């Protein structure tokens, strides 16, 4: 028996006569239905991955469902040589690593969704203006 207990898990006395009990008086664990239900519930929580436990966000199941692109894009960082090729960004912007990364992500996003290009250009322009002022 694999249970780490010093007590015998089951005491079986052989030979058994037909119809006699083999587990009478054997150790057992008493629980109520509610108590066991609590274990079942805790086990379900234990089994659920962390990200599903807290967000409960379903994956897109239909072609029309659009995932949260911003969340997917956020950690994306292009290699430096690719980031340097991003158009519409001044050399000054390329100096700033975080801004370069952000611009790279924006560029990727623009590639994924061309209709967002005007908006992304506007964001980049506003960032330049902010940096110029500061």
């Amino acid at each position, binding site marked *: *028996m*694999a*249970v*780490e*207990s010093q*007590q015998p*898990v*089951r005491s*079986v006395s052989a030979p058994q006569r037909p119809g006699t*009990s*083999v*587990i009478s*008086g*054997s*150790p*057992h*664990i*008493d*629980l*109520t*239905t509610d108590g*066991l*239900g609590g*274990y*079942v519930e*805790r*086990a*379900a929580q*234990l*089994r659920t991955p962390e990200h599903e436990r807290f967000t409960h966000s379903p994956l897109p199941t239909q072609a029309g469902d659009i995932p949260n692109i911003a969340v997917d894009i956020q950690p994306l960082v292009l290699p430096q040589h690719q980031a340097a090729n991003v158009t519409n960004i001044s050399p000054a912007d390329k100096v700033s690593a975080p801004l370069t990364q952000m611009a790279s992500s924006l560029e990727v996003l623009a590639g994924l969704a061309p209709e967002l290009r005007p908006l992304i250009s506007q964001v980049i322009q506003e960032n330049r203006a902010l940096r110029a002022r500061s």
Partner: protein
Amino acid sequence: MAPNQKTQTEGTNLKTLGLNSPQEVFDLLGLLKIDGEPIVKNEQDVLDPKLKAKAVIDYFSEKFNVKMDELPYIASLIKHDLKHGKLTWRR
């Protein structure tokens, strides 16, 4: 992925749950008495690992709609509480 890194593809990793074998899952759950009624009702089933496993699976499926692959988690929690004295053996 590193060459020595294996992907868990064959169900629950029992070791990480503190369990030594699949049979231990059924041994532990087969010892439960719920409201005074043993989960494994037929005494002969206790001695047969396959029958014991079937009795345990059937019980949790019928009473709690729990699938077989969820049983190790329940057994793990019960084993944990036994080791820490929150549950005790009875005779």
